[in-house]
């Protein structure tokens, strides 16, 4: 993989740091009038998902990371791996538990997920921003309360627990924002 000089730094550039692929989130040029110039960056480590600040001496080079995003449909899990398929080439990729991580609870069959590959292997699986899931269990809720103030917890088919308005019932399908884990809307079944 090519090296990148600090003057090529910009948000979205993927570089290697401490042996881990990282995404540059912010890059700021800092220079005392008479002194050494630096690039102060905010970086997300793509495997550990940690965000940290890192400063480089301007003009220094950093190894690039061979990282790419690909859109794949979720097929199934065999308990050890989660299998995804490219709907055009039918090529399949298996991601392990580490790559799935917390997002396990937002995986819906046939949904198109973003799979981040590092040197060809999946390291992060990002579900669609909004997923539709069936409520398997929630309290019946009080009649007449439609304002949705406060709400109640509901367990979804994947095991995820989200707060929903009182009027939403077991068996209904809801739309959830997978980034925040917040209820978005009730899905009308035709």
């Amino acid at each position, binding site marked *: 993989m090519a090296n990148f000089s600090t*003057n090529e730094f910009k948000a979205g550039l993927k570089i290697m*740091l401490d042996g881990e692929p990282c995404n540059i989130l912010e890059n*700021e*040029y*800092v*220079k*005392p*009038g*008479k*002194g*050494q*110039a*630096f690039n*102060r960056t905010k970086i997300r480590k793509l495997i550990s998902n940690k965000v*940290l*600040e*890192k*400063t*480089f*001496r*301007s003009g220094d080079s950093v190894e690039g990371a061979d990282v790419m995003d690909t859109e794949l449909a979720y097929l199934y899990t065999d308990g050890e791996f989660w299998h995804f398929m490219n709907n055009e080439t039918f090529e399949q990729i298996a991601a392990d538990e580490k790559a799935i991580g917390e997002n396990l609870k937002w995986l819906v069959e046939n949904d198109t997920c973003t799979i981040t590959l590092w040197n060809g292997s999946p390291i992060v699986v990002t579900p669609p921003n909004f997923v539709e899931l069936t409520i398997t269990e929630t309290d019946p809720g009080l009649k007449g309360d439609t304002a949705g103030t406060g709400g109640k917890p509901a367990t979804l088919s994947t095991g995820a627990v989200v707060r929903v308005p009182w009027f939403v019932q077991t068996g209904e399908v809801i739309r959830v924002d997978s980034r925040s884990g917040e209820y978005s809307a009730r899905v009308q079944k035709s």
Partner: protein
Amino acid sequence: MKSSDWRPTASISLLKQRANLITSIRRFFAERDVLEVETPALSHHTVTDVHLEAMQTVHTDPTSSDKRVLYLQTSPEFAMKRLLAAGSGCIYQICKSFRDDEVGNRHNPEFTMLEWYRVGFSMQDLIDEVAQLLLVTLKCFDTSDIRQITYRQLFIQSLGIDPIADKLPALIKCADRHGYENLTKDMVLSNTASQIADKDMLLQLLFSHCIEPTLGFDKPCVVTHFPESQAALAKVDDEDSNVALRFEVYVQGIELANGYEELINARLQYHRMVQDNQTRTLLSKTTKEIDAHLICALEHGLPQCSGVALGVDRLMMISSHSSKVADVMAFSIENA
């Protein structure tokens, strides 16, 4: 290119404020009998500063086949010192300066600089005058209430290290503690020349990242007596040869001005430029031919004086609460 890219990066109302600011600066110096001068933006020579890179252009002489490289000034300092040596008395200039490889929220490769020299002024006299100028132009501070602290005291208070007495290993430890181990891991302690350069680099890192963002919020902050290794064109302090009579002014976490009680000794100035070139070689940078006109002017005799350079765009940023220097320029480098 977007269809709106032709538009100015600053609003028209802000440009009016900017014009007023420049008028108030001119009035400030007129009231004090300081002469406005203009010196060339193009010069046959440039500075040797290790961390400044001049842009250059080529001049075709119609009377000969010569093509000569000319540098765009990084500041008007050398030319203004030649005027001082020729007997100009106190002078100021508002001009464009150019620095290569500098773009960011606080940097534009072409920027406006206010530079002035006061004959007979000590460093403290000039600091007091800078404070007066800030009072007039920023209208948000009371000059009697400026914070003034030495570089050494500031490091001891902020980071618990002594930037003068502590050696490189102590600075490496401090930098590592603040998460900059990637910048210290390749430093070698065996080479004396590289140790001096490394120590200055770490001091500049810690200053710009850990100290500068906290300076000058309730009142302007003036940091004085920089280490001798960062003297630039300042005189070394007679009372402590470890430090130079150099000061910097910070307002709202922004470096606004850099001033010196000027080094008037031609031989010492020449020696520093030779040293700069040695450090440039050490850092694999090209060396710069020393400007003989400046050295000759110093040999002729520069009056005892103090001088300071202040970033007008940054002053405008602070006065208008802007977060980017582009917001206070008609056109930034992006759409110049």
